[in-house]
């Protein structure tokens, strides 16, 4: 069966060059990078080189990169680490309602331990109101943490402007750029960000490695106390193979980004336009243009997302749902709800996120396959009148509970 992978925001395939770059450290070069003997020497060099590559991608200094095990760790390190180190300066943190669970989780945790957290709204296109942000700032605000690009809708926030606002108020600014890095050029110097998270497995490195940029002079309390690794900011024996892989992935991102962006944007637009032409009652979730080039999030009204995904899966197409049905909870996407998308539409959303491995044939296959699936599911849906080809009038009694 054909296999078409359109879920690159969830994770990416390891790039063959990245695989080759990590291989030695899973074989002969297994030494501990802290060892002074022969076994530690090449692993240490590999880490140094990876750090240079990551720093080059972000345009920062090697001393400003901390390697972590995943984007979630990076987000937690940045947010909790700053919150704690700045606790005597204030206890107010500003974030948004549409952050990734790692950021939301860290912020909600801090809210329980005496911090005051403001969760900013977004509009129906998923955009922020910068005036709202400015109004939220108080004399106690110590940290603004706002994502670079949303993982579900692809919407890009105006990080440069937020950075300027933060700077004016002398507030530290962290951005979760897990979905931005590798997809659009990011220069931390130009952006006025103090901390930035990226994750390896979203940029063709394997799972298990990520990084945080921490601007020189910004002090944060470690999340993982222990050895002297990462300049005492993250204990634990370094994941040499993973770090070497991340370095290579950063190098490739820098090298190929311009070209890949062209390729991926064209395919994404082809998919988006193709589906919207062929299928009625499709809603675009997110902003039409201020979006990372690989992502399109569509709600197919009257049908539920997971059913669509299962049907797509049976045809070999991997996509994912804004509906978190897929991920251990039944509540619809907090991102779409924050945008004011109605419950049923939020449940009917599908996120297609493209990657460097996709071809025009892949896209055409999906454009070919999906209309029939949607039609069949609609014919089964009590919300849709097949005869009238429009929403059906129904009333129902509430049953079942999403909280468990």
């Amino acid at each position, binding site marked *: 069966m054909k296999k078409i992978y359109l879920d690159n925001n969830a994770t990416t395939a390891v790039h063959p060059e990245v695989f080759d770059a990590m291989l030695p450290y899973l074989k002969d070069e297994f030494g501990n990078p802290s060892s002074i003997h022969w076994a530690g020497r090449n692993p240490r060099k590999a880490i140094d080189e990876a750090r240079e590559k990551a720093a080059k991608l972000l345009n920062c200094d090697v001393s400003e990169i901390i390697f972590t095990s995943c984007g979630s760790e990076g987000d937690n390190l940045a947010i909790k680490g700053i919150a704690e180190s700045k606790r005597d300066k204030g206890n107010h943190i500003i974030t948004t309602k549409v952050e990734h669970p790692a950021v939301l989780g860290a912020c909600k945790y801090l809210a329980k331990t005496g911090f005051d957290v403001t969760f900013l709204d977004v509009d129906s296109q998923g955009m922020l109101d910068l005036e709202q942000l400015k109004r939220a700032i108080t004399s106690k605000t110590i940290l603004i943490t706002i994502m670079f690009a949303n993982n579900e809708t692809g919407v890009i926030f105006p990080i440069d402007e937020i950075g300027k606002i933060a700077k004016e108020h002398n507030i530290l600014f962290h951005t979760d750029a897990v979905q931005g890095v590798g997809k659009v050029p990011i220069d931390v110097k130009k952006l006025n960000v103090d901390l930035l998270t990226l994750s390896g497995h979203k940029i063709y490195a394997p799972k298990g490695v990520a990084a945080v940029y921490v601007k020189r002079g910004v002090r944060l309390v470690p999340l993982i106390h222990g050895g002297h690794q990462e300049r005492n900011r993250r204990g634990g024996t370094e994941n040499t193979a993973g770090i070497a892989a991340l370095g290579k992935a950063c190098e490739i991102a820098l090298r190929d980004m311009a070209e890949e962006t062209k390729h991926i944007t064209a395919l994404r637009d082809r998919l988006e336009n193709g589906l919207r032409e062929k299928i009625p009652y499709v809603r675009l979730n997110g902003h039409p243009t201020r979006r990372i080039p690989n992502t399109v999030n569509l709600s197919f009204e009257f049908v539920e997302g997971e*059913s669509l995904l299962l049907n797509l899966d049976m045809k070999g197409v991997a996509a994912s749902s804004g509906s978190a049905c897929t991920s251990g909870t039944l509540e619809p996407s907090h991102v779409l709800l924050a945008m004011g998308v109605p419950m049923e539409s939020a449940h009917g959303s599908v996120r297609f996120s493209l990657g460097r491995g996709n071809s025009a044939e892949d896209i055409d296959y999906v454009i070919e396959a999906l209309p029939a699936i949607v039609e069949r599911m609609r014919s089964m849906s009590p919300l849709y009148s097949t005869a009238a080809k429009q929403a059906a009038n129904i009333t129902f*009694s509430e049953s079942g509970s999403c909280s468990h």
Partner: protein
Amino acid sequence: MYSEKVMDHFSNPRNVGEIENADGVGTVGNPACGDIMKLSVKIEGNVIKDVKFKTFGCGAAIATSSMVTELVKGKNLNEAEAISNATVAEALGGLPPVKQHCSNLAADALHAAIEDYKKKHAK
């Protein structure tokens, strides 16, 4: 995630549709969970002669809808009322833990349809 049996009912759902001039119709659901089921029944004497469903919902919701129609066809009302959401889930060989609470409303829809029938009948 889903068992083969669930996937079978999901991809080849039995008794999809609406019965015209149904004797009873039950529509239940919870938009927060993303599941709405509409079940219509044809009842003759005390026996469910025909049953059809339409469901907006995830894989589990569709499979349970399909399964309940299979379970109930030809049963009398007492037997039908004894069918619980758990009976349906069991008949499908179990559902993933996260789907056990919600998405498993098919018996509720059935009971609502029977109630509807009884209400009309009582008049």
